[in-house]
């Protein structure tokens, strides 16, 4: 069981900055995120896009902002459970919480801060009738172990980076790879597009465009897919395959957090703006995931909310301790790793 002071659900900018503010108060943090990397939407959706309203940064790329935050919180040694989704929460008799992920990892903390943004990112599934029947029977939305596809006939659908990159990778593993996309154009890194072109020319990859998969067939397991060409002729092709991997990106879902007994309004968690606590004592919600009168879904607002949340969390964890806020310029930053950053002392010297 992982133990920490503040368990943060969601490793986007707000969750990451909460680690810093908690660290100043000597509180340790652990973060859970469904994505395999930290940064939330900033890393997953728009890492190369600029943001213009982070105070002090006239322009910063979302990916760089995440890198900076990771650097800023490094000395507070946050723990991470990545690639797992927070599934259930249990309040123990002493008022502390145990949060368990979909993979069974347990986390124990007196304070839970939900910084879940728009929710956890789930694969977008194509609208096909018997899709769920073949899930784990030939259909997968993520490639965890490429060896599963060794010497198999695989069809991949999608037109973005992941569809291109996996088509390239699997062309060396699978016995046959077919890439189906609704357009002739692909949206991906230039190298990947060129590599797919090369593989197509050399016959190592079948490319069917513009086309889409409209039906799945098979008794128990997936045996074939029906592909319809999107052209005037509407030609239909039955392709024998072992595996179908639709890679249509990810979309956020509030998910299991919605069933934790928290007050929900407009797909967000209602909080008290005094300290961003939810209707359950000890559970806070900060950043895009919360709502209150006047709420703005801005990163800079998330930073503010994280800061006030940490003060309240400190009071809960240490009800008897006296504390006044101290400027980092005055107090410096003492990491849990023994490092200390502080303002250089002024030189006192007589001028003769």
């Amino acid at each position, binding site marked *: 069981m992982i133990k920490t002071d503040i368990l943060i659900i969601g490793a986007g900018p707000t969750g990451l900055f909460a680690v810093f503010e908690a660290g100043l108060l000597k509180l340790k943090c652990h973060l859970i995120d469904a994505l395999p990397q930290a940064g939330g939407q900033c890393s997953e*959706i*728009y890492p190369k896009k600029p943001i213009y309203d982070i105070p002090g940064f006239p322009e910063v790329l979302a990916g760089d902002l995440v890198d900076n935050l990771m650097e800023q919180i490094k000395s507070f040694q946050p723990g991470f459970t990545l690639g797992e989704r927070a599934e259930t929460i249990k309040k123990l008799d002493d008022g502390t919480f145990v949060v368990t992920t979909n993979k069974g990892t347990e986390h124990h903390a007196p304070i839970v801060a939900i910084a879940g943004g728009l929710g956890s990112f789930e694969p*977008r599934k*194509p609208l096909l009738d018997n899709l769920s029947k073949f899930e784990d029977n030939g259909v997968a939305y993520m490639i965890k172990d490429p060896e599963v596809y060794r010497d198999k006939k695989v069809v991949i659908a999608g037109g973005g980076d992941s569809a291109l990159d996996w088509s390239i990778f699997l062309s060396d593993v699978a016995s046959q790879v077919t890439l189906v996309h609704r357009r002739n154009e692909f949206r991906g890194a230039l190298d990947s597009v060129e590599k797919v072109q090369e593989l197509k020319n050399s016959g190592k990859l079948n490319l069917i465009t513009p086309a889409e998969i409209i039906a799945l067939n098979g008794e128990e397991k997936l045996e074939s897919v029906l592909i319809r060409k999107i052209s005037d002729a509407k030609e239909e092709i039955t392709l024998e395959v072992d595996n179908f991997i639709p890679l249509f*990106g990810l979309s956020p879902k509030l998910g299991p957090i919605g069933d934790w007994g928290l007050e929900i309004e407009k797909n*967000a968690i209602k909080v008290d703006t005094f300290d961003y606590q939810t209707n359950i004592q000890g559970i806070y919600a900060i950043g895009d995931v919360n709502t209150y009168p006047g709420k703005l879904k801005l990163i800079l607002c998330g930073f503010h909310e994280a800061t006030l949340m940490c003060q309240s969390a400190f009071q809960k964890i240490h009800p008897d301790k006296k504390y006044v806020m101290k400027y980092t310029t005055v107090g410096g930053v003492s990491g849990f790793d023994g490092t200390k950053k502080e303002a250089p002392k002024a030189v006192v010297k007589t001028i003769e």
Partner: protein
Amino acid sequence: MTDIKIKIIDREGVLHEIDAPTDMNMNLMEVVRSYELAPEGTIGICGGMAMCASCQCYVVSDTELPEMSDDEEAMLSEAFNVKDNSRLGCQLHITEEMDGLEVELAPEEL
């Protein structure tokens, strides 16, 4: 003139005739949100970067609209429930030329 008339059919099939400002740097997705014609969190999820299709709509009137950008075309090619008259609301900047536009919001992707 600063306001134009737009007709929007929401996801329940209800028609709304609304005034949309042309001087507020707004797009169609934002207009829909400002009138709360679709619940918060179900539209404009990516904030208007053409990176999700939650603001997809079908253009019903024959209003002339600006050409699609590569981003919009790429996103729509991966979206679901796409029709020939699909557009992303976030990519339609409200201008006077759009007066009389009628659109229907595409169903929410589940």
